[in-house]
């Protein structure tokens, strides 16, 4: 059976689930950010697959993917800056110990 739209969508769903598990279960804030990047990449794969198989002449999914990559780059820069600032103030990046607003 040749590779079709469903294969790419399943791959995207698997990668998204792995990223979801990492974002929910991990305690290291950098690993959580890496899991979010995996999730964004999975969504991009789904977008490009839809663009390739459903509307090959319009390229809409690829344009959306360009914008997602822009936002992901901005998110990574600001997120890592926040993590470094937290580490400077509290000497930890454990997500369970960053609970200043819970007290």
């Amino acid at each position, binding site marked *: 059976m040749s590779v079709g739209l469903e294969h790419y969508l399943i791959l995207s769903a698997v990668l998204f689930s792995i990223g979801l598990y990492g974002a929910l279960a991990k305690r290291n804030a950098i690993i959580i950010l890496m899991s979010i990047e995996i999730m964004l990449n999975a969504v991009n794969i789904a977008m490009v697959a839809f663009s390739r198989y459903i509307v090959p002449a319009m390229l809409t999914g690829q344009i959306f993917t*360009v914008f997602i990559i822009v936002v992901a780059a901005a998110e990574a820069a600001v997120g890592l800056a926040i993590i470094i600032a937290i580490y400077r103030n509290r000497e930890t990046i454990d997500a369970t110990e960053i609970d200043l607003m819970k007290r």
Partner: protein
Amino acid sequence: MGADIAFWILAIVGVVAALTVVLLRDVFRAALSLILCFLTVAGIYITLSADFLAAVQILVYVGGISVLIILAIMLTREVQKGSPTGKLRIPAFIVAVLFLGVVSFALLNTPWQVSTTPPTEPTTAALAIKLFGEGGFILAIEIAAVLLLAAILGAIVIVREK
């Protein structure tokens, strides 16, 4: 046929790399396998005949975001502690598996109307016409530029020494 083999190799390597990111305790090795995952996603774009996006993926993710992440790992000196899982590991696993099951069920039972027209290649010129041409995404591009500028300024202000 060659594209099928390429897809399977890239898919398996990508999923294993993503699993390694999540399951490994060594933060630095997790970052390295994240780079491998980004590279396989670029390969997946090539099998989908999205050549421009593959180049952008390698430039932005493999070249930019990976360096940022490794720099953050080095600056925070949390490598010794590793990446332990929290108390919610089993609920998180259940949620992820349930999500995967529901999404797979939904997308395997949807009758997609797959088009038979061949994909446009190369995509760079076509993407540029779509983005900057008549009725394109000029406003969105301007907003993206402002967003990037704001993100750079925000990152500098946040990490600056007092």
